[in-house]
C-alpha cells in the first residue's frame, strides 16, 4: 500500500502532519509518537524575535471544540534554529516551519534565516486571529495575501505553504490570491474566531476576549473550504480542522487535500496522530485501495 504523497516536490512518507501550535517542535510528544512515522512535523509559529504571547487564561473548552488565544508565544528564531531544527533533523520526517510576523519584513527575516537550514517546507501563518498586528490582518484581504506571498517567494529557498484563515467571505478568493503570489501549497483552515463568556463571573473566558475555535466542531466548515479551494486552484492542499480519527482524515482527502494536519486531537490523546495514520491505512485496506493518492479529491 502506498501512503507517500507529494507536496510541491517534497515527498512525505504519509499524509499525516501535526498542526502548528499544537505539537511544539515535537520534543514533548516524542515520548508518545514515533516522529519517524509522521509525514511531517509542522512546528509552532516562530518569529524573528521572541514573543511573550497573551495573558492567561489562554484557552477555554467549548462544545466539541476549544478556543485558544496563545498569541504566538515563541522563543524567536535564534533559539529555534539552534535547538528545534537539530532535534527534528534526527528523525525521518519532513520539517515544516510555521512562520509568523507582525510586518512583512518580520516574515521575510525569518524566511531568509531559514534559507540555509535543513527545512523542507515553510508554512506562512497569515491567519492567526489572536495577535493585534500581523497574523489574520494579512489573510483577510486578497491584495495583501498576494503581496506577502510574492515577497516571501522572492527570498524563500523552500517551497512555500500559505496558511489561510476561514474568517473570510470567500476562501477561494484568498486561495487564488495566494496562487497568484506564487504559493506552492495551501494550508487550511486556521481557527474560526470565537468567544466564550463565563456567566457566573460575568467575564470573558479568555483574557484576550476572543480566541480561535478548533476541534471537531469546525470540521464541516474546514471540509467545505478544502473542497471549494481544491476546485478553485491547482495547488496541493494540507487540510485540517477537527480531524480526530482516520475517517476524518480520509474525508479531508476525498474533499481534495493531499496531506492533513492533526491539532486539537493531540490534546485528547497524545498518540492521536498514530491512531489516525493507522485508521487511514485500515480504511484503504478494507476498501482495497492500493495508493492513498487515488482518493484525493475523489468525491
Amino acid at each position, binding site marked *: 500500500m502506498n501512503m507517500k504523497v507529494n507536496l510541491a516536490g517534497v515527498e512525505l512518507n504519509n499524509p499525516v502532519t501535526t498542526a502548528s501550535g*499544537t505539537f511544539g517542535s515535537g520534543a*514533548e510528544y516524542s515520548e*508518545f509518537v514515533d516522529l519517524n512515522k509522521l509525514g511531517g512535523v509542522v512546528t509552532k509559529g516562530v518569529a524573528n524575535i*521572541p514573543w*511573550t504571547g497573551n495573558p492567561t*487564561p489562554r484557552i477555554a473548552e467549548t462544545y*466539541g471544540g*476549544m478556543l485558544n488565544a496563545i498569541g504566538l508565544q515563541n522563543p524567536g528564531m535564534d533559539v529555534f534554529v539552534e535547538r528545534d531544527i537539530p532535534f527534528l533533523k534526527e528523525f525521518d520526517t519532513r520539517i515544516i516551519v510555521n512562520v509568523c510576523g507582525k510586518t512583512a519584513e518580520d516574515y521575510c527575516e525569518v524566511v531568509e534565516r531559514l534559507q540555509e537550514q535543513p527545512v523542507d517546507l515553510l508554512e506562512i501563518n497569515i491567519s492567526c486571529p489572536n495577535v493585534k498586528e500581523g497574523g489574520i490582518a494579512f489573510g483577510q484581504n486578497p491584495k495583501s495575501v498576494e503581496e506577502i506571498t510574492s515577497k516571501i517567494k522572492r527570498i524563500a529557498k523552500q517551497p512555500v505553504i500559505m496558511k489561510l484563515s476561514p474568517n473570510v467571505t470567500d476562501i477561494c478568493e484568498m486561495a487564488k490570491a495566494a496562487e497568484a503570489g506564487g504559493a506552492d501549497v495551501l494550508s487550511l483552515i486556521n481557527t474560526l474566531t470565537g468567544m466564550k463568556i463565563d456567566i457566573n463571573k460575568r467575564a470573558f473566558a479568555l483574557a484576550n476576549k476572543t480566541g480561535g475555535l478548533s476541534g471537531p466542531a469546525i470540521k464541516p466548515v474546514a471540509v467545505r473550504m478544502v473542497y471549494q479551494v481544491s476546485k478553485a486552484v491547482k495547488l496541493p492542499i494540507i487540510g485540517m480542522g477537527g480531524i480526530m480519527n482516520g475517517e476524518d482524515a480520509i474525508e479531508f482527502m476525498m474533499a481534495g487535500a493531499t496531506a492533513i494536519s492533526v491539532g486539537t486531537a493531540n490534546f485528547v*490523546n497524545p498518540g492521536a496522530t498514530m491512531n489516525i495514520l493507522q485508521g487511514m491505512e485500515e480504511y484503504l485496506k478494507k476498501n482495497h485501495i492500493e495508493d492513498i493518492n487515488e482518493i484525493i479529491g475523489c468525491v
Partner: protein
Amino acid sequence: MADKFRATALITSLIEIADGIYSMWIKEKEIASHAKAGQFVSLYCKAGQLLLPRPISICEIDPEGGTLRLVFRVAGSGTREFSLLQQGDFIDVFGPLGNGFMPMGKKAILIGGGIGIPPMLQLAKSLECEKTIVLGYRDKELFLKEEFELLGKVCVSTEDGSYGTKGNVINAITENKIDGDIIFACGPTPMLRGIKQFAQEKGIKAQLSLEEKMACGIGACLACVCQSERKDHHTNVNNKRVCKDGPVFFAEDITI
C-alpha cells in the same frame, strides 16, 4: 524512555468524602510506579462534547498496589461526570505529569487550601523530616484532616470560623506560631500570594503548586503559562509552563 502514560484505568473505589468532594482510587500500575508527590494526572471525559483533559493532583500513591488516589471537587461538567462514575468503571488517564515537590529542609510547613489540600497528603507521607501541616477549609467539612493527623501536627483554619483558626492559613500559622525552614503549598492564588510574601519575610524558601487551564499537559501548546522572574530556557520569554516546568515552583521564581 517514556515516563508518562496514557491508559484506561479501573476505578477501584469512588466515594463522596465531603459535600461535593470525591475520593477516587484508580488502578494504573505504570503511573503509580512512576508518580511522586506534587505531580498530577489528566483525566478524560466520556462526554463527546468535552474534549480537554482535567488536571487532578495525585493525592496518594500506592506503588505496590499499583493504585493512585485522586480527590476532586465537582466544579463543572467534567468533574460532575467523574463523580457519577462507579467502582468497576474505567476512566482514561494520562500521567504522571509535572515536576512534583522537591524534598528539602529539616522542618517543613505543608500548607493546603481548599481543593489544594489533597496533594499535600502524599507529600506528608513521603517527607521524612519534621513537619507541621496547615489546612485551610471553607467550613467544617474537614475532608482528609484525620488522615493528615496520622502523619504530623495539623493546624486548621476555616473561613467561617467553625473550626480551628477563623480566617486563612496564614492566620493559622501566626496563631499557632508555626515555624520551619521550608514551605510546601497548594491552594488558591491569593493564598499562594500570601505565602510567598510570608516566606520572603521569614527568609525561607517556599515551593508553590500553581493552577492554570491546560490543553496538552506536557509543555507543547503553551496554554498554561505563568509569569516567571527569569527568562525560561525553553520559551526565551518570561513565561513558564505550569504543566511541565511546574506545577510546583519556587516562590522567588514566579510572579503571582
